[in-house]
């Protein structure tokens, strides 16, 4: 599978939010304004990319030699949680401005299922390390796309005469559902038609 095919797959066809329903919590929680949404998207992209490579290494250099593949979920959670903590410290030290922008979202990502999801999908699909890196990057970009689109919609929704019972999260879920329907238009045939396989 070419790298472009992986990018297209995770950004559009298997978008984490709209077709896999992973990482819904920050998607709803942090999509109230587009500035925060971009911050959250950037943090998630960063973490999925780094976590993909590191979990790939852990899996193939530690779990496979000892035939402990069944431990992947436990070890991946351990890896991701510590990785995010470490990242938080590093960012705080190196760039206080970036820390201020991302700082509050990083702990949210610790237990974000999108990050664990891409780590496990990389392994299930049997990617090599560069493919895993691309997969992580694409998953993050797909998440960013979804959350930024959503935040723009929600900013507009705030100004609309929405019925009281639907205001806030309920209408957000309905909008998310409609966007998800739209994303269903992207499917595997896109990749075959573009002759990317």
């Amino acid at each position, binding site marked *: 599978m070419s790298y472009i095919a992986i990018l297209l797959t995770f950004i559009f066809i298997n978008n984490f939010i709209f077709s896999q329903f992973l990482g819904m919590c920050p998607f709803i929680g942090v999509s109230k304004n587009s500035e925060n949404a971009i911050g959250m998207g950037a943090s998630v992209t960063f973490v999925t990319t780094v976590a993909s490579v590191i979990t790939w290494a852990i899996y193939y250099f*530690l779990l496979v030699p000892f035939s*402990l593949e069944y431990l992947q979920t*436990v070890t991946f959670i351990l890896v991701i949680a*510590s990785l995010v903590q470490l990242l938080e*410290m590093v960012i705080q030290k190196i760039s206080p401005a970036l820390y201020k922008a991302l700082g509050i979202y990083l702990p949210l990502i610790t237990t974000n299922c999108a990050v664990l999801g891409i780590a496990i999908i990389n392994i299930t699909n049997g990617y090599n390390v560069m493919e895993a890196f691309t997969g992580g990057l694409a998953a993050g970009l797909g998440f960013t796309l979804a959350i930024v689109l959503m935040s723009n919609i929600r900013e507009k929704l705030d100004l609309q005469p929405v019925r009281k019972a639907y205001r806030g999260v309920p209408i957000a879920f309905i909008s998310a559902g409609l966007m998800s329907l739209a994303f269903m238009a992207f499917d595997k045939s896109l990749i075959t038609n573009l002759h990317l396989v």
Partner: protein
Amino acid sequence: MNIVMAIIVVAVLGGIFGFGLSFAEKRLAVKKDPKVLALEPIMPGINCGVCGYAGCAAYAAAVALGEAPIGLCSPGGPDLVAKMAEIMGEKVDASGETRRKVAHVMCRGNVEVSSKGYEYEGLEDCNAAFLLFGGDYSCKTACLHLGSCIKVCPTDAISRDAEGYIIVDEQKCISCEKCVQICPTGVMHMIYEDSEYAIECNSHEPGGKVRKVCTVGCIGCKICENKYPESGCSVDKFLATFDQTSPHSQIADAAEACPTKCIIKR
């Protein structure tokens, strides 16, 4: 054998990450401003947000950077201002002493003096009752007596008296305004603690409408304002307000003359 291996691998990984993180924390520790470290412990720590910052720690950081003035913290009061000024090396002029504000329920309505639109039977919560036609009282700015303010008060300053009215213990009130924010009818107001009188009505409806639904509401008749110009009362949109700072020598007479007796001595 496999199980032993699994335990070892997970334990070793956990150990490496644990030690790695604690080591990283030491190496990457960010030095905090000593002023912030000194300010944080003296803050009230209830994170009420009256100062306009996200919490006590955020306000302390802003003060330490010189972005915020000291004295925005109403729960802390003058004591905190003095302590913060000492840490920041600033001088506070005692003349600008702030008058303390306390929460007060601006309504004397109850089942006997006010009419009800319907009987409310449901969740003991003002906001829940307010969803149904703005509460059971015909007056939509009345105190609903369901006690959302009691639940939200961080210092247990709000309680019910024997007659069921909501009362505020002014010694305990720290002016955090949480009750003002949660009250759906807006009947909770912040008034100056040293005010001798309060006009306990919250209705801006014209007199006729108020008369129909309540016998103790302010009808906006302006007797206090016109007949007793020295009473300190002024009427705006059919509701009188009392100001302690203006001349108020005639307030006792005005209270006596008020047709609905809504000027209450505190």
